[in-house]
C-alpha cells in the first residue's frame, strides 16, 4: 500500500463523474455520425448496403436540382430568420430596457413561444394563414385589400414560414438581450447620459459593445437552429408548393426514408453537418472561454 501513490482527496472519483456522459454521447452520437459518413460512401438497396461507391453519392447529390433547391431554401431561411429575429429582438430589448410596470407579465408572454412545439406552431399558423377564410385574408378583404396566397405561392410560402419562425424566436432573442442589458450596471448609463445627449450615442458606444458577447451567442445559436429547420415547414406547407419550402433536413427525410435512397440522404446530411460545423467552430473559437 505504501508505495502506491495515493490520489489526493480532491481528485477522488474524477472519472466516475464524467464517464457516463462520455460513454453515452460516444454511443448515441459519435457512432451514428460515423455510420452516416460510412453510408454516404456506399450504395444501398431496400435499406441494405450493397457496396462502396466512393464519392458517387456526393456527385449525384451535388448534381441534383432538388439538393440545390433545398440548399437555397435553407440558406435563405437562415439569413432572413437570423436577421429578422435578432434585429427585432434587439430593438425590443432596447425599448424595454427600463423600469416598467407589467414587465414580468410581458416576459411570461415571451416565454410561451419558446416551448411551443414547432409542428404545433406550423398548424397554428396554417389556421391563421389559410387562404380561403383564414382570419388574416378575411381581415385584408374587410379592409378592401387583396387576399394573399400565403401557402400556395412559392414566395409567400417562404414568407409564411419566416413569419411563424419570427413569432417563435424573436421573444427568445429579446429575453436574452434584455437579460444581458439588465446585467449592466445602472451607473454606466447615468454617467453616459451626462456625457452624450443622444440615445444612439449611448447605444453605439456603451450598450452595443457591452452586450456584444450575448448578441454574438444568440446570433450563432439562432443560425445553428435555423439550419436544422424541418418541423415547421413540414406542418405549415409540407415543403411546398413544389419544392419551395423544402429544406436540407426535409431532403434527408424524403430521400432517405421515403424514397429509401440512403446514399443521397446521408450525403446531404454530411453536407448539412459540415455547414453547421463551420458555424459551431466560430462559436467555440469566440466563446470557448465561457466553458473553462
Amino acid at each position, binding site marked *: 500500500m505504501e508505495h502506491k501513490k495515493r490520489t489526493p482527496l480532491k481528485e477522488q472519483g474524477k472519472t466516475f463523474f464524467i464517464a457516463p456522459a462520455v460513454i453515452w454521447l460516444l454511443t448515441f452520437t459519435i457512432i451514428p455520425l460515423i455510420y452516416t459518413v460510412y453510408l454516404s460512401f456506399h450504395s444501398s438497396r431496400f435499406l441494405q448496403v450493397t457496396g462502396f461507391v466512393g464519392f458517387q453519392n456526393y456527385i449525384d447529390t451535388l448534381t441534383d436540382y432538388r439538393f440545390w433547391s433545398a440548399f437555397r431554401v435553407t440558406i435563405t431561411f437562415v439569413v432572413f430568420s437570423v436577421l429578422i429575429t435578432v434585429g427585432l429582438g434587439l430593438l425590443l430589448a432596447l425599448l424595454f430596457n427600463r423600469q416598467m410596470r407589467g414587465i414580468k407579465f410581458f416576459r411570461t408572454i415571451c416565454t410561451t*413561444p419558446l416551448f411551443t412545439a414547432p409542428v404545433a406552431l406550423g398548424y397554428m399558423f396554417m389556421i391563421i394563414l389559410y387562404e380561403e377564410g383564414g382570419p388574416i385574408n378575411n381581415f385584408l378583404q374587410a379592409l378592401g385589400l387583396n387576399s394573399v396566397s400565403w401557402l400556395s405561392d412559392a414566395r409567400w410560402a417562404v414568407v409564411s414560414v419566416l413569419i411563424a419562425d419570427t413569432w417563435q424566436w424573436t421573444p427568445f432573442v429579446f429575453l436574452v438581450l434584455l437579460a444581458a442589458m439588465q446585467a449592466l450596471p445602472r451607473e454606466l448609463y447615468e454617467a453616459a447620459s451626462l456625457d452624450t445627449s443622444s440615445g444612439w450615442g449611448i447605444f453605439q458606444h456603451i450598450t452595443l459593445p457591452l452586450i456584444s458577447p450575448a448578441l454574438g451567442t444568440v446570433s450563432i445559436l439562432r443560425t445553428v437552429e435555423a439550419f436544422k429547420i424541418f418541423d415547421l415547414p413540414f406542418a405549415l406547407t409540407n415543403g411546398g408548393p413544389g419544392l419551395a419550402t423544402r429544406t436540407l433536413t426535409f431532403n434527408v427525410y424524403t430521400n432517405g426514408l421515403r424514397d429509401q435512397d440512403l446514399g443521397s440522404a446521408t450525403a446531404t446530411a454530411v453536407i448539412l*453537418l459540415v455547414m453547421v460545423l463551420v458555424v459551431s467552430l466560430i462559436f467555440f473559437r469566440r466563446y470557448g472561454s465561457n466553458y473553462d
Partner: protein
Amino acid sequence: MSGYKKHSWVNIILWVLVVAVLVWMIFPLYWAVITSLKKPADVFKLAFIPFAQFEPTLDNWRSEFQFRGKEITQGLKNSLIIGIGAALIALAIGTLAGYGLARYKYHGMKNRDITMWILSQRFLPPAAVVIPFFLIFRTIGLIDSVIGLVLINATFGIPFAVLITRDAFRDLPEEIEESALVDGCSRFQVFSRIALPLAAPALVAAGIICFAFAWNEFLFAFIMSYAKATPMTVVIAGTQDTQGIQFWYVATRMLMAIVPPTVLALTVQRYVVQGLTFGAVKG
C-alpha cells in the same frame, strides 16, 4: 416642461408598441383557442369575440375525446413517458458530468474541451444522425417503441442538463464540501448529500427544459413511430391526412400538445435564458 412632454411621448409610443407586440404574440394562440370552440360553420368567418360574434361550444373537444380519445390519450401518455424518461436520464448523466466539470480539473481532454464537446451535441443537426438511428433501431427492434424515443431524446437533453447543473454547482461554496471530504465523506456522498440538494432548483429547471424539448421533438418521433409509440407531435401531424382541413379539430389537438410543456416551462422562467443559451447569458 418640454422635457416632461418628450418623456410622455416616449411613453405613449412605448405603450402602443407594447400593445402591438402583445397582440402579435397572443393572437395566434387566441385564434387557436377560439377555433377550437367554434362550430364548423363559424370557423371560416372573421369572428373574434365569443358570445358576441359566435356561439362558443365544447362540441369539438367532446367529439375529439369521444371518437379519437384512444389515439389522443395514447399520444399524451407517450409524450409524457418520453418527456419524463428523457429528462430523468439526461438529469442522471448530466448532473454527474456537471458536478465533475464544476469541481475537478480534467487533463488530456480539458474541461473546456469536454464541455464544448457535450454542448456540440445540441448543435448537431438531427438530420445527420437520423438515418443510422433508424437502421440501428430497426435491427434491434426499437422502431415504434417509446424506449427508443426516450434514448434519443435523452441524448439531446444531456447538454442542457450538464450546462445548467455545472453553473449551479459552481455557484455553491466549495468550503462545505471540502470540510466534509476531510471528515471522511466520499466524493459521491458529498455530491449526493450536500451539493445535490443545494442545487435542486437548477436541477428541476434542467429537467423541465429537457422534458419540454423531448415533448416537442418531431423528426425522430415521426420517423421512429407509427402506431403504439406515437407521441402528441405525431398525432397532430396526422390530423391533416385523416380529416382534411377540419381546423376545429386541428386546433384542439394542437392546444393539447402546446399546453403541458409551456405551462411547466413557465414555472422555471428564471432559468430559461441561462438554460437556452447554455450559460452564456445569465437570466
